[in-house]
């Protein structure tokens, strides 16, 4: 199982994403100017400020050579995870519904957030364990960091109704945690087919106890399970 982690000019979380992916499989960085995905079984579009976030976050990165290959990979059913700026890129590329807008608080905000995993039967969350002592409650809860200024998830009413009905909302900010003003407290959303997920918080920064939480690891483990399950 091999992850391909994209690197754009202005990416800054690709090394942590690589590190996180290597805890569950092989991983390699893929430069934005290349079209070859080098046999990756899953793609991570990392956080940062691709192309300086000029014009709009993700607007220019979506047209990079590597993204042409990622779009084709996703259309073929390949597993693609977009984190933070990666989420913005995937929305701009129309692989995911909706858009990310400036935080309602107008501030770059960096804090640990609590997320409810509201869909656990997905390629990205199947390894996330239920929260609570003795497995009480059915929802999993993740504590991972968020750091962004453009994280307010927005989609029009028909799109919101459709993604809610279709189980495409995978992660929500827990009560009181939605600092950016995202509609329906949406922190992570997948496409209708279920092979592409974008989320604003950073699971790759929460894979080592030294950093206070290892809750992010289950996202990468889930992706490995999904890839290996598809091979059988």
């Amino acid at each position, binding site marked *: 199982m091999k992850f391909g982690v994209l690197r754009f000019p202005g990416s800054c979380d690709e090394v942590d994403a690589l590190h996180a992916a290597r805890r569950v499989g092989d991983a390699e960085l893929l430069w934005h100017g290349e079209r070859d995905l080098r046999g990756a079984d899953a793609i991570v579009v990392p956080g940062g400020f691709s192309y300086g976030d000029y*014009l*709009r976050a993700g*607007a*220019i990165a979506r*047209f990079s050579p590597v993204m042409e290959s990622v779009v084709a990979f996703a259309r073929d059913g390949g597993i693609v995870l977009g984190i933070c700026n990666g989420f913005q890129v995937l929305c*701009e590329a129309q692989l995911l519904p*909706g*858009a990310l*807008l*400036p*935080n*309602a*608080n*107008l501030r770059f905000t960096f804090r640990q957030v609590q997320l409810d995993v509201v869909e656990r039967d997905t390629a990205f969350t199947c390894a996330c364990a239920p929260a609570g002592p003795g497995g009480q409650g059915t929802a999993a809860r993740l504590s991972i960091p968020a750091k962004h200024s453009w994280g*307010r998830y*927005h*989609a*029009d009413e028909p799109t919101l109704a459709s993604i809610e009905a279709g189980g495409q909302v995978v992660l929500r900010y827990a009560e009181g945690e939605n600092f950016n*003003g995202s509609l329906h407290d949406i922190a992570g959303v997948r496409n209708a087919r279920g092979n592409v997920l974008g989320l604003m918080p950073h699971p790759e920064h929460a894979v080592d106890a030294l950093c206070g939480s290892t809750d992010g690891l289950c996202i990468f483990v889930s992706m490995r399970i999904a890839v290996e399950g598809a091979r059988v």
Partner: protein
Amino acid sequence: MRARVLIRPKAGILDPQGEAVQRALPALGFEGVANVHVGRLVELDVQDASQLESMCERLLANPLVEDYEIVLDK
């Protein structure tokens, strides 16, 4: 040909920048200001103005959340 593309948040979408500016103006003594919205301006020279619409749809604006207006200089 010189063109200007005005890009603004779609009506009905929360515009915290506009709201912040609207709150700031009365503090400076400017009264009677409403419906403030903050957008972007893209200025460009183009040979074929008929391509501007497509440029806006594909790159300059995000039609999901932004409206755009193309102004051609005479």
